[in-house]
């Protein structure tokens, strides 16, 4: 269970408040977060695994504080970024997965076998020794997800994981995320994907402005954006 207890985030350099004091409990298995660019939704997501730490208040995951027990929290919460290239650390696909497994499997042969199994599960077994630079965007995102799953998290936070992908890979990555037996929190601009969650949170100007039924949340967000599009001159 994830708890935001009056958690607030202020940018350290500019002093701008990115997230207003927020109190939330997230325990549904599928949660989507939607909002305009710069609304603070990514900051909210990053606070879940301690990539961003609250300036005041606290965030707890299964009772663990993301500041005091950050390393333990990150073993429970996997994070998937929008741009997979910067998330892939090793030169080849199999080496990237084995890197995630180094902590849990000490024997190298076992580790490589486990990595091959994971690559097979996501349909990239034939790309094991291929450079990560030679993979397509969709394959990279699948590999990044596999690298995160290899640390066996209980929660996955995915920050716009399909934004840079074509329709085919968007469907593929989306289906894989939906099939995971884990709690998945997805930040997305894909309103269809958002509506498939059990709960949707709308973030606007650093505050949660709607929290509830996905269909209603999507409608609320559409109306909000439409209002803004009418109210503000087009650029």
């Amino acid at each position, binding site marked *: 269970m994830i708890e935001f207890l009056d958690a607030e985030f202020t940018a350290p350099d500019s002093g701008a408040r990115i997230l207003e004091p927020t109190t939330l409990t997230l325990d549904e298995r599928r949660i989507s977060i939607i909002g305009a660019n710069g609304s603070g939704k990514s900051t909210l997501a990053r606070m879940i*695994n*301690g*990539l961003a*730490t609250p300036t005041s208040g606290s965030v707890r995951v299964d009772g663990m504080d993301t*500041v005091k027990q*950050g*390393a333990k929290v*990150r*073993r429970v919460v*996997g*994070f998937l*970024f929008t*741009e997979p*290239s*910067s*998330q*892939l*650390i*090793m*030169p*080849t696909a199999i*080496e990237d997965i*084995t*890197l*995630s497994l*180094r*902590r849990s499997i000490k024997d*190298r042969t076992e*580790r*490589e076998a486990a990595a091959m199994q994971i690559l097979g599960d996501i349909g990239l077994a034939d790309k094991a*020794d291929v*450079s*990560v*630079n*030679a993979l397509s965007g969709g394959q990279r995102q699948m590999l990044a997800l596999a*690298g*995160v799953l290899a*640390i066996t998290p209980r929660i996955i936070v995915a920050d716009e994981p399909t934004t840079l992908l074509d329709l085919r890979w968007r469907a593929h990555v989306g289906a894989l995320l939906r099939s995971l037996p884990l709690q998945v929190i997805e930040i997305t601009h894909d309103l269809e994907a958002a509506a498939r969650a059990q709960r949707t949170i709308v973030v606007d100007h650093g505050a949660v402005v709607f929290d509830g039924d996905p269909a209603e949340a999507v409608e609320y967000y559409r109306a909000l954006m439409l209002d803004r599009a009418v109210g503000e001159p087009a650029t």
Partner: protein
Amino acid sequence: MNPTLGMYRPRNTPMHQAPAWFKAVLLVVIAAVFVLFTDPITSVGLMAACVLLLISTGPPLKATAQGLLGIVIIAALSGGFHVWRGEIDRAIDLAADLVGLVALALAVTSSTPMEHMLDLVSRILRPLRRVIPPETMGLMFAITVRAVPEVARMMSESRSAAKARGLDRSFRAVLIPTTTRTVGFALDLGQALHARGIAEEGDNPAPYRRARRVKH
């Protein structure tokens, strides 16, 4: 730079079968011989041996030839400077040293999985674990290898973007976006490491756990 240059490929060559520690020792010993022996015939002989060793690992010929071409040009320029100064022996020695060392380094990297390199660096540094965190140092080595083609790609994209804006001859139009994107890549990579919990508390011995703890 070709992103696959020097990248490990599984093969069944003697170099692939040799343990990582042997290849690391080979690299150090031959580098020392290159430096210590300034005789041009020895240097050319060693260079030929290193190039043959590289070929024996079965690298993709076109990409490797393209990659080595850059080094050959630098070696030729450096050699040309010494020829101009009348130091023909020195010119041959330096050019052969440069090409030979790069060929040897490529032979090692293309026949050794990064995982084995990481293990080796971690094992070598284990006795110094109270001073240097072995896992982190191994990871630094891996990230350096990963970052080289990434930076080359960013530079190529910046060059294309500069061309598209009619700034073909502007060095600044390539350098500034490449630098800022490289910094961005490094920050993103740091966040990715953090997010995956790699090289965090628990991976390193107690003194590091204390030193790296950040007060919020």
